[in-house]
């Protein structure tokens, strides 16, 4: 049973532009920190109204401070990027199911771009309990491989890739994952769809189970509008009970049944 989410009014504590258009926003939110599980997200209520809320992963959650890490790519994230320390913000959450870390001892965490925002909390939890965590982190160029130190400090081993070769492997991060020695016993991934598809493919080749944190355009974020579905194996424990299916698959809501799904249970 997941802890009950709520709407919290929080105050912005800090704001850092980690790279051009990549904003880290910290705020005072002790109640949210208490109940957040790795892989969950919030709906950030637009300060000026007139827009849908924005789905954002909970990046950090420690003590009385939580944070969001996001890329300015449209009207809503532009508005959130205007917030300054002292400003108020309301968040609905934590929402979604989060990662299932099980007893994994050797985990490959794969992040592409701002997908990094979903994987700090599981990485921290895993290293704290003594699991080996390798972070496979890919981005356009070195500038957008943001906040690497935080992962290193948390005890992760870093393997990086950039599209332009400015740091690490010159190419896709999933190429590094495929070549990794000491086969992981679990893969966690978040990033753009093509990267997640490639991760699912590599995981299948390696014979390792992978959990993918999907991103979709949300409206409600709480399962009320059926706007964010993905075809899921109807035998999945996450599958909604629903009589109509396309063959063996049923439409599951990314916001409610996800956002984290087992790669082998998705059809895409």
């Amino acid at each position, binding site marked *: 049973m997941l802890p009950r989410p709520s709407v919290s009014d929080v105050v912005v504590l800090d704001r850092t532009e980690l790279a051009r258009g990549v904003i880290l926003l910290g705020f005072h939110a002790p109640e949210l920190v208490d109940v957040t599980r790795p892989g969950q997200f919030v709906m950030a209520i637009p300060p000026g109204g007139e827009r849908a*809320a924005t789905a954002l992963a909970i990046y950090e959650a420690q003590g009385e401070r939580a944070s969001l890490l996001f890329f300015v790519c449209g009207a809503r994230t532009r508005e959130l990027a205007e917030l300054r320390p002292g400003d108020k913000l309301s968040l609905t959450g934590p929402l979604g199911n989060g990662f299932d870390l099980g007893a994994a001892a050797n985990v490959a965490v794969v992040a592409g771009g701002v997908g990094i925002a979903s994987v700090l909390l599981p990485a921290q939890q895993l290293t704290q309990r003594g699991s080996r965590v390798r972070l496979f982190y890919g981005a356009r160029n070195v500038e957008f491989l943001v906040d690497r130190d935080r992962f290193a400090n948390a005890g992760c081993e870093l393997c990086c890739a950039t599209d332009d070769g400015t740091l690490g492997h010159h190419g896709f991060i999933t190429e590094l994952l495929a070549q990794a020695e000491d086969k992981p016993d679990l893969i966690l991934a978040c990033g753009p769809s093509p990267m997640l598809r490639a991760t699912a493919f590599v995981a299948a080749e390696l014979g390792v189970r992978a959990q993918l944190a999907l991103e979709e355009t949300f409206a*409600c974020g709480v*399962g*009320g509008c059926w706007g*964010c*579905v993905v075809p899921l194996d109807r035998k999945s424990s996450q599958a909604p009970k629903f009589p109509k*299916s396309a063959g063996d698959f049923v439409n599951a809501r990314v916001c409610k049944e996800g956002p984290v799904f087992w790669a082998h249970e998705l059809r895409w």
Partner: protein
Amino acid sequence: MSGMDLSVKIGKLELPYPTLMASGCYGSGEEFEAFADLSKIGAVVLKSVTREPRLGNPMPRLVPTPAGLLNAIGLQNPGIDWYLEHEVAKFAQRPCAVIGSVAAFSVDDYAYVTQRLAARDEIAAIELNISCPNVGSEGETFACDPALTGKVVRAVRAVTGKTLIVKLSPNVTDIAAIAAEAESAGADALAVINTLRGMSIDVHAWKPRLGNLTGGLSGPAIRPVAVLAVYEAARAVSIPIVGQGGIETASDALEFFLAGASAIAIGTANFTDPRIPEKIVNELGAYLEARGLRSLRDIVGKANVGFGTPFQYEGDVG
């Protein structure tokens, strides 16, 4: 705010608050219970249900637009059989009234689904969705033609004595004519408006952004269109109107009441902030109190006060 009367009567249905949660935007209420006090809303209108189960439209189903949202869910729902067997009993637990929404593609199916759904005690009233723009041209045909509107409303009226709310489309030349036809065919109330038909194109991929190509536009962007539709429908009928389309604040809601709505529905605003419905109810109470009014009924349709002759210049009318 003690003594403020925000109750409304829609046909036989009496609600403590004038705020309905719009169909398709609030699940069955359960999804929002952690964030919103459902005892402070008038009613939840359920997602529309059809005779057969439907997987709905291909993704993407949602596109944010300026001050609006395009959606093309395509009536994903488990169909009436499953619905009656597995879902409806749960609605009894809601601390507010639950209104069923019926969609179909033929007059017979509208009557069939309504009859079975309305027979259940958990369902306080029926909303007839004859205006869904997201299921091919058939879905909206009924609300786009006065004769068809009359035909389907008469058929449904014949199978239930429960309050019948007919939901109209704004995608028509003359909404007043259709409103009048729905009333004379036996509707107890009208829901005005459903979404505006729209499209958004991905200029990188050269294809429509919605899997269904076209969708329905909701949210603050459409509010002026909705207020006018309510104003025109209200002058054509004497049954109550549930105004909707871009309501985010008590002030927005008041525009609809003044235009002639007896109640309002809140849809897309729940995606902005789930506390909006309760905020609206509180502020409506404060508004009435500040003006020494006792009931919302005192303001319904009063947008015309002082407007006998709207034009100030001679000879320019028309």
